[in-house]
Each structure stands twice: as C-alpha cells, then as structure tokens.
C-alpha cells in the first residue's frame, strides 16, 4: 500500500553495509522511503538497527553500497552535511544540550535557516535582529506543537523525561527535515506517554509532510502507526513489507517476536 509511485524517493539505500575490521555489522541493506511514509525498523538487540541509523546519518561512512537522499548521492558525507540534505535524527539515549535552555536547544538547530554573519552578530546589525526574531518565533511555534512552550526558559536538564524526548524531536524538526529518524522514541515511557507520542508522531507527519523512520521495541506503537516494517537480524534484512505480513512471517517470529503469545496478542 505504501509503494505508490511517488517521484523521487526521500531516501534510497542500495546494498548498504559496514564492517568494523572483520565484523560485518550491517550488510546488504536495501531500503526505499517514499514521501510522507511512516516506517518502522525492528529487530532483536544487537541486530544493527542503530548502526543503520548511524550509516544513514553519516556518523559512519558505509564500507559498501550507495546512499541517496532526495535524489542526491549522500555517500561519505558528514553528519552536518546530511542534516542539511534533510535527514534529522534523535538518539536512543537522549542527547540534549543540557545546560542550555529549551528554546536555545531548538535555536541551535534553527541555525541552518538563519543567515547573518559573525560580524553582523558582533555589532548587532539589523539583519541579526530580523533573523533572530524570525528564528525565535519559528522555534516557539515548534515548541507549541510539542506542548513545551511553557518551559521555553527552563534548562533542558530540568525537564521531565517524557518532555526531554519531545524536545529532542522538536530540535530535530527545527532543521526542516524531509526525513526524520527516531531511535526508540518510546523507550522508558509509560503506556499513556506512548499513546501521546503516537499522536505526536502522526501529527508531525501530517503537519510537516515528512517521512518518518523509527526504531522501536514497543510492538503496540510499531503496529499502531507504521505502514511498513523492516526487520533486521544479525545485520541483515530478514523481512520487509506491511505490518500484517511481517508479523506473520515465520522468520521474524523465530528471530524476534517469539512463537506463541506475541503474535496472537497484537491483533
């Protein structure tokens, strides 16, 4: 259902792989993400899910294969260049700028769309004020989407856990991505928070018209919102397709979901 013919795929990974010395962490990874899709990446611990994220965001340079973002080759680009190409991410263990304010956390990421030079900032020339004002209102708008506007002046470190997760997503969104990678966004959340998060993710996709790829262990969340699921095991894709096909795939059941209850419980 998600394989509609949409012009240029947002992301295309063609036989992507990486080895650390003799260890093949990920190999032969193929993925095509179209516009506005919501896709899940699942697999047992140590399967290489986060490594895939690191490959897609330029943290690691792939040792094999090709990576294309919005039709432009992104092979061997640095993380900040890939962010500029429209891929933003969050981290499994939250990485905020802890001693900066909530607003400043988002403003750091807004920097990409701000245009004033060091000298204009030093002497506070008009363009500085104009651009700062524009960025500030954009950042506040983003914070509103995540219901964080009341804590804009807080130190990021002082936010409760759930809000820190949201702030990290808000910061990623501030780079104007066309593809958002979420690394276990629901980790450590209670069911209510997870429910709220699902709503936020859906809202993000609709409001900003972006593609979302997420790693998640919470199958309720994955099956609840993802239209397509990729399953990774030992660095290889073992299945991919719409949720129902994937969870009934015997290979996926042996590798990840487990035999009896899980399969029946989900639907």
């Amino acid at each position: 259902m998600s394989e509609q013919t949409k012009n240029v795929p947002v992301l295309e990974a063609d036989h992507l792989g990486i080895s650390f010395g003799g260890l093949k962490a990920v190999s032969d990874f193929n993925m095509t993400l179209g516009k506005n899709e919501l896709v899940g990446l699942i697999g047992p611990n140590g399967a290489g899910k986060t490594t895939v994220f690191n490959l897609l965001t330029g943290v690691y340079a792939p040792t094999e294969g090709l990576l294309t973002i919005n039709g432009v080759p992104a092979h061997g680009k640095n993380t900040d260049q890939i962010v500029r190409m429209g891929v933003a991410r969050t981290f499994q263990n939250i990485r905020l700028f802890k001693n900066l304010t909530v607003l400043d956390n988002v403003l750091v990421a807004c920097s990409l769309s701000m245009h004033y030079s060091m000298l204009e900032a030093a002497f506070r020339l008009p363009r500085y004020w104009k651009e700062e004002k524009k960025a500030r209102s954009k950042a506040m708008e983003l914070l509103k989407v995540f219901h964080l506007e009341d804590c804009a002046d807080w130190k990021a470190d002082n936010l409760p856990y759930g809000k820190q997760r949201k702030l990290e997503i808000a910061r990623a969104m501030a780079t104007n991505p066309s593809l958002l990678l979420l690394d276990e966004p629901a980790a450590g959340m209670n069911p209510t928070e997870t429910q709220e998060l699902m709503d936020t993710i859906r809202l993000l996709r609709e409001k900003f018209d972006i593609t979302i790829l997420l790693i998640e262990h919470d199958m309720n969340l994955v099956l609840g919102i993802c239209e397509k699921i990729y399953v990774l095991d030992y660095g290889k894709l073992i299945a991919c397709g719409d949720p129902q096909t994937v969870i009934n795939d015997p290979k996926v059941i042996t590798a990840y979901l487990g035999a009896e209850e899980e399969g029946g419980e989900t639907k």
Partner: protein
Amino acid sequence: MTKKTAFSYGINLLAVLILFFVLLLLNQQGIVNKYVLGIMTLICINIILAVSLNVTTGCLGQIALGHAGFMSAGAYTAAIFTQAGVIPGVGGYFAGLLLGGLVAAIIGIIIGLPALRLRGDYLAIITLAFGEIIRVIIENMTITGGAQGLKGIKKLSAMGVSLFGMNEDFSAFAIVFFLMVISVVVMYTMMVSRHGRAILAIREDDIASEAAGVNNTYYRTLAFTISAFFAGIAGGMYAHYIGILGAKSFDFNKSIEILITVVLGGLGSFTGSVVSAIALTSLPELLRQFSDYRMLVYSIVLILVMIFKPSGLMGTKEFSLTRLFGGRKNKSSQKGSDTQ
C-alpha cells in the same frame, strides 16, 4: 530590538560611562595617580586575555594552555609594526593592534585545525607545546630582537594623544579602557548569536550538535580563532604599555595565569572572567605592604575559592545590571560593567 533589550543595552552603556567618568574625576582630583592608572591598564589587558580564553575554555569547553603564545604573537607584531613607523602616531597603534590580532588569529587557525581534533588533556598538552614553540621561534628570530627582546617600543602614553583635554596618561588609559569594553562586548555579542549557540552546543554534546546541523570542526576552529585574535590584541596593548618585550614573559606560566583567572571567575561566565581579572591583577598590588606574604595570600585565595566555590566565582551565570535594576527576570547582555 525590543524595549527590554534596548533598556539593558542602555543601562550597561550608562554603567560603563559612569565608571569612566568616576575614574576621570578621581584622576583629576589626584586620587588615581600614575601608578594606579598603570595597574588599571594592566587590569584592562588582563580582562581581554581572560575573556578571550573564556571563549575557548568556557564556551567551547576545551582547556587551552597556549594563550600566552597568541598574546606574544600579537605583542611582537604590533610592536614591530609601530617601530617600523608605517603609520605614525596613534593611528599606527590601532593598526598595529589589528595586525597583531590578525597574525594571532592566523596562527590560531593553523594550530587549531590539527589540534582541535583532540579533546581535553590531549588538546591542553598540544596547545602548551605550541605556545612554547611560538616562544622559541620568537627567541631565535632577529626581527624580534632574539633572546635580548624588543626594546624602545613607543608607549601609548608617550604618543602625545590628548583626548578632550585629558592629560596624556589618562588619555592612554581611556583608549585602553574603551578598547577593553569594545572587545568584551564584541566577544559577548558573538557568543550570544547563532555562532555562539553552536559553540555552546558542541561543549554540551558534540554528537548531538552535529546531528543538529552544526559543523563541529568549523565552529571549534572559529572559537579558537576568536580567542587567539583578542589575545593578540591584548598582546599589542601590553607591548605599548610596558615598552619592552622579552619572550620569557610569555612562557607557559603566563598561560597558566590566564587560565587561573578564567577558572576562578567561573568557566563560561564573561562577567566572572572580568571580576576575576580585576581581583587577581589588583590583589598582589593591594598586598604590596605585606611584601613577602603576598604571593602566599594570593595562593590561599585561589585554594579557598576552589574549595568553597569549585565552579568559580560566578559559576556559569552572568552578573546582570538589567536584572539588578529592572526587577524582571531578564537574561540579557552585560557589558563590561566592571567596578574598581
């Protein structure tokens, strides 16, 4: 510009001017004599040094031990430039300072690009080594006077500047004072901008900063270069205050001294660096009557501060006149509102 920021800029400007006129008045009354003016000039120079190192150490979060190297590069460049007499008088002084800053900044880029690949202790050692290399090079060049040093640099107070009928000594101090204010303000405004935020983000988490689109290498080098530029300017001011340069005075003890000032003031706090530079420059002078014990007291003060306030005098916070007078919570600029 909102009303609030306009208010805070105004009040800080006012504070600087009031401070200046109080000093002028005291000078005319004969209370601030030539000796005190000299110390205050040194204070201004040390403030620039401390605040500029604060950009690398406080904002970028990397310990650099080669600050005296940048200072000496600026000092020698400015001194050689004015001695050559390309531009006579005080114009040459300003041109020399700018040139000194630029030379220091270029050295900063050259050192920064390879050195900033390292972090923490490793970077500290590398910058220490680079500082020593600069010193050894200066000691072995003929243009810098070799180990003998550079003599007969025209002092600013001997350049015959008389601003608005002030005497020559005070005019020289006035120039140094306002250069210091401008330097501190410019460093502060640079750090409260998208560039400054990127640098702070790298300090907080360099993996996350990259994921937020910050080019880490570029901004690391930028912070380091800004730091070097202003250290160079401070060096040039020092050369034209002291009148004689020897490479020995820019050894690594000098770098450590500047680092101590920054740490004592609180890493990342501009006002902290300012307050601490004032305190640490004037303390040995105030204690002169206890002659032998003064360095002891100096050290004890350092130890006490580190025991009772390990984050430094100001921590990472800024002292804000706006907050003091405006009543409202306002995270606004503080501009060199140092009091003597």
